[in-house]
């Protein structure tokens, strides 16, 4: 028998209600004894007599609610405790009215659901700050999916949130996973002990899905793309860090963002080094020395960040991940592709839906093939004059405003027309040596991105063929088998269209580079640190 308990500070339910819960739990399979009580002295005595007084409950006070179960296995105990929590929530929920009602304002929704704790805002940018402020005044944490919120408003909101001890995730925050619930675009992840705070939606998705295949995710806290700008100063990243530091379920932490300014970096690293839990910092494309000097562990890519966090958690030495597949096989795959290229095909054309993936790929690739032009370039002189026209090596983030806002189309993770057009355009360009794509799954993404892209890719290859060329296409799929779109089937759809599917964006970028330079970058890939 394994005894497990959980204490909820300051939660109250009446004793008759709790007795009914206890009764129901006791009837479940694999449960020897179970009890849900307020941790009064009298109840503690009763638990002691029954051999169920855990240290945690002994320390609790009469205002705390305690659940304790005595089960056949540890896993079963965890499951039963989860069930108890669900039972309590279900019983408290109002029937009829609330279940079906739709509210016209945040205020009336909050009145109807007074125990709500997060407000997820995805209204047009110019109205988002107003709603967020109202949410904070109502005492709720906020996630702002919307972008186009003025920087001054972001600063005001985050300062207000900080004053009230409330998180402001965003603006422009695409993903958070709080206690297993995905908000915004999120993958279905396995629960576990590793927490992530990220200033990038796809960044956190990439890291969290890799960790999900390992020990599992406790929380993913998105901060929004501008959190680490000087004006904002990393307020949400710092609060998120503190939250993970305080969270008993989080044992190891990963921070992800683009490199912040030295002032902000210093503040973040200082706070990070005080946390006292193993931590990996991924300032994508930044100088690892700064992080090492702070006594923390740097990661060069998203994949690297995940691998190192998992290694740390397991007490292993963090290693650099280059290719997860057999190296000879990787070499052969690349060769099969590049031997069919014509001499004129020289450039990699990255057509991205996730900005962080685009940046990560550019960081990896520039070391191997040279400068990459982009609409979100690593250096200002590399900015594309016309984002619709590639120049030499070009990686385009099609999730950027210029593509979405202007035409009023939804994000390319949901809506593929623009990417499809671009793929065909690059296929017609005789200088294109390889097309590089990201495919993002999860709640909020297109229901079948692989299915949407595969026909276009086949057509693209045909276009090249007609002109006497061969067109390699390399992609990675960011998702899990539990996602509604199913990772495995998405990869299959792409593979049947002739796509080289790599296990991560970083590996896809390396593969694309390898193809573009006809295999000549192999040593550099192996010996480098990107």
């Amino acid at each position, binding site marked *: 028998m394994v005894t497990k308990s959980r204490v*909820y500070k300051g939660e109250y339910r009446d004793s008759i209600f709790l007795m009914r819960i206890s009764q129901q739990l006791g009837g479940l399979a694999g449960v020897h004894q179970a009890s849900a009580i307020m941790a009064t002295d009298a109840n503690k005595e009763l638990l002691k007599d029954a051999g169920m007084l855990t240290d945690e409950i002994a320390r609790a006070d009469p205002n705390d609610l305690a659940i304790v179960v005595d089960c056949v296995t540890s896993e079963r105990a965890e499951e039963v405790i989860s069930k108890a*929590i669900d039972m309590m*929530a279900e019983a408290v*929920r109002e029937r009829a009215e*609330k279940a079906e*009602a*739709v*509210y*016209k*304002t*945040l205020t009336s*929704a*909050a009145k*109807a*659901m007074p*125990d*709500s*704790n*997060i*407000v*997820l*805002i*995805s*209204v*047009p940018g110019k*109205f988002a700050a*107003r*709603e967020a402020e109202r*949410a904070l005044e109502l005492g*709720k*944490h906020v996630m702002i*999916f*919307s972008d186009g919120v003025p920087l001054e408003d972001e600063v005001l909101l985050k300062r207000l949130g900080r004053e009230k*001890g*409330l*998180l402001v995730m965003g603006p422009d925050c695409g993903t958070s996973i*709080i*206690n297993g*619930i*995905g*908000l*915004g675009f*999120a993958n*279905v992840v396995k629960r576990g002990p590793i927490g992530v705070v990220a200033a990038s939606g796809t960044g956190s998705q990439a890291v969290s899905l890799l960790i999900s295949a390992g020990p599992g995710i406790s*929380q993913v806290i998105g901060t929004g793309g501008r959190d680490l700008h000087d004006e904002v100063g990393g307020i949400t990243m710092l*609060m998120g860090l*503190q*939250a*993970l530091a*305080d*969270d008993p379920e989080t044992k190891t932490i990963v921070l992800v963002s683009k490199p912040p300014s030295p002032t902000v970096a210093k503040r973040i690293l200082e706070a990070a080094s005080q946390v006292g839990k193993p931590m990996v910092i991924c300032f994508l494309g930044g100088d690892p020395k700064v992080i090492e000097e702070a006594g923390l562990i740097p990661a060069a890519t998203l994949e690297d960040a995940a691998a190192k966090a998992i290694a740390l958690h397991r007490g292993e030495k963090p290693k650099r991940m280059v290719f997860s597949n057999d190296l000879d096989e990787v070499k052969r795959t690349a060769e099969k592709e590049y031997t069919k290229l014509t001499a004129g095909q020289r450039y990699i054309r990255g057509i991205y839906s996730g900005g962080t993936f685009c940046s990560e790929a550019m960081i990896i690739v520039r070391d191997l093939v040279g400068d990459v032009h982009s609409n979100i370039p690593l250096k200002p002189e590399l900015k594309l004059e016309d984002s619709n026209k590639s120049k030499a090596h070009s990686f385009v983030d099609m999730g950027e405003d210029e593509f979405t806002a202007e035409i009023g189309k939804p994000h390319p993770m949901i809506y593929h027309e623009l990417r499809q057009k671009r793929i065909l355009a690059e296929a017609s360009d005789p200088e294109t040596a390889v097309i590089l794509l990201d495919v993002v799954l999860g*709640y*909020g993404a297109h229901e079948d991105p692989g299915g949407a892209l595969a026909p276009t890719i086949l057509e693209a290859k045909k276009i090249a063929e007609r002109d006497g060329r061969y067109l390699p296409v390399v992609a990675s799929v960011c998702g899990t088998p539990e996602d*509604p779109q199913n990772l495995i089937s998405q990869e299959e759809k792409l593979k049947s269209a002739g796509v080289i599917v790599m296990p991560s964006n970083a590996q896809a970028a390396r593969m694309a580079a390898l193809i573009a330079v006809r295999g000549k970058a192999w040593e550099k890939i192996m010996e480098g640190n990107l």
Partner: protein
Amino acid sequence: MRLLRKPKIINVGAKFFYDNLKAQGADAVHVDWKPPAGGDREMMKLLDKLKGF
């Protein structure tokens, strides 16, 4: 700051985020949001001004 125990979410804006939440079995309600004052800037300014009273 203590992390939220069980997220109970008010979704303001795109219904499909609400649908996603419900599909995950989350506790959520949806606000069928419309621009305040029908987008009338003058009215929004007045409303905001009154907040200070």
